[in-house]
């Protein structure tokens, strides 16, 4: 082989391999390997493949209301305000004028008590990201800290992240308890694609967590 052709051959092989990798990645990597939540039916993102989750902790006594929520892995540190239902029967997030505030469904379970505590925040406003913009990047094993009015901190561990389409929405799975007697947390925002005709996102991102510590 002539000396001048070696580098060219090497480059050609590198380009060939890179090309096959780019092409093959699109066809070979399905929901199990992709790091991003997918469209369509309920897709469980990042299901722990051998990730050890800590045991759940007994619920914290008392019904102190939440004041702040922190998700260190996502850089979320926000105040929490009680909210009710909107006219469609969904938990009403705080108004767009306060896009960095998280809403808690007040008539429901408080974080740390047995049952599912519901926290809802905007993914964005009409012009910029909002408090739960990064929520879909949460992964099992991440911690969520909720500070309560009695000074206690309920620490939850994420065990599920899913994208639920609006037209295949099961309220019992999203808003209901997943294991009886367990203190649970749901963090919900919008996801999917944004339909400009209706002004709505096509899905909800639902992060589920359960109580693992109290401070």
């Amino acid at each position, binding site marked *: 082989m002539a000396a001048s052709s070696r580098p060219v051959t090497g480059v050609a092989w590198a380009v060939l391999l890179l090309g096959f990798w780019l092409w093959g990645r699109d066809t070979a990597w399905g929901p199990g390997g992709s790091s*991003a939540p*997918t*469209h369509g039916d309920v897709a469980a993102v990042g299901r722990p493949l051998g990730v050890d989750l800590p045991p759940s902790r007994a619920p914290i006594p008392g019904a102190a209301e939440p004041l702040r929520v922190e998700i260190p892995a996502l850089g979320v540190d926000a105040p929490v305000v009680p909210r009710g239902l909107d006219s*469609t029967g969904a938990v009403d997030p705080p108004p767009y004028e306060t896009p960095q505030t998280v809403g808690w469904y007040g008539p429901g379970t408080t974080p740390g008590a047995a049952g599912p505590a519901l926290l809802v925040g905007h993914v964005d406003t009409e012009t910029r990201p909002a408090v739960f913009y990064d929520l879909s990047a949460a992964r099992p094993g991440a911690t969520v800290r909720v500070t309560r009015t009695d000074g206690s901190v309920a620490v939850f561990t994420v065990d599920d992240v899913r994208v639920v389409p609006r037209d295949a929405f099961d*309220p019992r799975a999203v*808003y209901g308890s997943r294991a009886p007697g367990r203190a649970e947390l749901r963090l*919900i925002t*919008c996801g999917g694609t944004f339909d400009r005709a209706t002004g709505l996102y096509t899905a909800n991102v639902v992060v589920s967590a359960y109580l693992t510590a109290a401070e």
Partner: protein
Amino acid sequence: MRSGPIALRAAGAALALVLAPAAGTALAHDGVQATATPSTAAPGADVDVRVKGCEGTTGAARSPAFVADAELTGRDGGAYALFGGATLRTGLEDGTYRLSVTCDGHDHHDVGTLTVRRHQQPTHRPAPVTPVAPVRAGGGGTAVFAAPVAPGVAQTASGDGLGTPYTLLGLGMAGAAAVAVAFRSSRRRRAE
């Protein structure tokens, strides 16, 4: 005992007796009571009016909330109620409005109330008490053609992976490299 203090006390008692009926309950004047059904209605709605305590067979119910007086009719005798209907004015402010009744030749003021509330839920579809619907929590400001469902990762509508442009790029690069290698190989063979 002096007569002065007794007279004063008697006058005071008489005054109290005279004033008492006027200061009595606003809702039962001489035993006449009016109720509207529904007791809370939206502007422009129809309400039924039922009046108890009138002796005669006719009467009228009035209210600032009514478009016109409600004509009341019923059976003779105090044991029977009079009935009528009225339409509420449109453009009413929310609040409580008094009902007054004329029957047996007398006006009976403030013998009932009705509440006006706009934008009511229809009674056959009660508001949900638990969350049942997906949340509306995004204004779309960060959405481009398709909203990124994970930060920094653009998603096409067709599914996961990098998308069609990268697929074509990958195929093109592989093809160009294969052609280059084949071309170089054929040139080498001819040169030898």
